[in-house]
């Protein structure tokens, strides 16, 4: 029955990335090997100011080092405090939580779409696909930000040996325009059996689902919602379902099939 672990973990590395983005590598989490792409960890922010835990998609794991890595953007008090942690600081981590991505068929051409700080689970998925012997040449990574500053860890993505299509809204780097526009242009010239995975702002996910409908491509999105408990108990993070009723993002998601949630 017992599946979720709660550990007093420790910061083993922190990095300042582009703009307001930060990276934390968290050690002393023996079950890191169980974390799947699309799943998240619920982190207790040290200090009296913040009451609830904060949910972060996993960016990477190192099972041998019993560690995991998250990348986040400073958007409020919780993330600001998290950004102040240093190597050696303790922090309480709960996980694995949520449902991750379903893997594609081996024959599929995989289109990965990441918008802004939605990149971490998409990177983790790309990495796991390659480790699982998916053909690198069939994985395409579209990564969009408002400006170049929003694109982080591009060297990591490049190192995976997959085709990377960076885009910026203002054209400060890569393709100029929304990441979904780049995907649309790509699909206008390419044919094949595709599968799409996307994580990013809600407007982007809506556009992704529109594209998927137009080209009849199956796939999944990972959505974001503030989560008090992270385990499916409080029902505070719900989103409406297309079929009616609500879904608990933390437990039934955060990964959903296209057309499942009302975006």
């Amino acid at each position, binding site marked *: *029955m*017992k*599946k*979720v672990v*709660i550990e007093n973990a420790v910061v083993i590395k922190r990095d300042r990335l582009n703009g307001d983005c930060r990276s934390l590598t968290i050690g002393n989490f023996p079950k890191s090997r169980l974390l799947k792409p699309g799943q998240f960890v619920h982190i*207790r922010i040290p200090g009296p100011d*913040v*009451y*609830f*835990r904060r949910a972060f998609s996993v960016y990477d794991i190192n099972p041998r080092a019993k560690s995991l890595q998250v990348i986040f953007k400073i958007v409020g008090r919780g993330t600001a405090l998290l950004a102040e942690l240093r190597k050696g600081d303790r922090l*309480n981590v*709960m996980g694995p939580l949520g449902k991750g991505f379903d893997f594609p068929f081996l024959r599929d051409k995989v289109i990965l779409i990441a918008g802004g700080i939605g990149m971490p689970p998409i990177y983790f998925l790309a990495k796991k696909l390659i480790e699982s012997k998916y053909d690198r040449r069939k994985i395409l990574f579209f990564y969009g930000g408002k400006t170049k500053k929003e694109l982080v860890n591009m060297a990591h993505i490049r190192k995976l040996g997959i085709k990377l299509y960076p885009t910026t809204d203002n054209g400060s780097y890569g393709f100029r325009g929304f990441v979904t526009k780049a995907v649309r242009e790509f699909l206008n010239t390419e044919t094949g059996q595709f599968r799409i995975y996307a994580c990013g702002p809600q407007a982007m996910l809506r556009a992704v689902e529109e594209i998927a409908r137009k080209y009849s491509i199956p796939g999944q999105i990972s959505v974001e*919602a*503030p989560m*008090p*408990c992270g*385990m*499916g*108990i*409080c*029902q*505070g*993070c*719900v*989103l*409406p379902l297309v079929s009616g*009723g*609500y879904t608990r993002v933390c*437990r039934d998601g955060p990964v959903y099939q296209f057309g499942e949630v009302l975006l």
Partner: protein
Amino acid sequence: MKPDLSVVIGGIKFKNPIWTASGTCGYGEELAEVFDLSRLGGMVTKSITSNPREGHPPPRTTETVSGMLNAIGLANVGVDRFIKEKLKFLERFNTRVIVNVAGAKLQEYVEVCAQLADCPRADMVELNFSCPNVEAGMAIATNASLAEKTVSEVKKVFPRPVIAKLSPNVTDITQIAKACEAGGAEALSLINTLIGMAVDIETFRPRLTNNTGGLSGPAIKPVALAMVHKVYKAVKIPIIGLGGIRNYLDVIEFLLCGARAVQIGTALFVEPETPIKIIRDLEKYLSRKKIENIQELVGQLRIY
């Protein structure tokens, strides 16, 4: 010698006074992934109504200073599915199950409790007279004669102990408490959440679509303690205290103020293992203070 943590409420023995509060442990399924529910004295389920309820549109929760505002809107699976699936799941655990019941009117409480009467796994019912997010709940919560009538009608159909859960959003909580006692309630639980509001200054909108919500968490503990003590002096039936409990120190405060058992609520969202830590720490405290039975602490507050 190991101290005795057991307590008796409404003639039913609980292995310890630590319960989980309604709405903060669902139907037990998720929490069972973190610890063995059999270690709890009791578990109070999410509110059950006659029909399934989807609840309010999101956002339903928001964080406040030392607390949480929620307006879930009694989302639940309805009594039929609850009995078929959720109560069945709880059969495997050796803990007391208290089913929290909510209704849009008196008759709904009676109907749901009548169905639960045939389910021995429902050791007790707790009548939610105090959900601040649903109009009908508040009507009973603030009306002594209606509260008394509801308890007495439920008593006619439910053969095991009945707890009335009281709202702090009233002028004088002791009036409602006495009315529930007169209606035949075996125990009272208090407090439910305090009505509160949080505002987004960018959009000029409340942070919850319900506009207001129920405030819980450490922020409300002093209010809860004052009310528990006030009610303790006013009634003879046992009190189950709740409101902002995070650790064993909080629990002892509630016991001293007159609570015979306590419920852990919002703390479960932050630290799901809270009840287990509290039980362990209570044993240590009692050993250190050479107190044989935890019930010796109940109401021992020395007021000025």
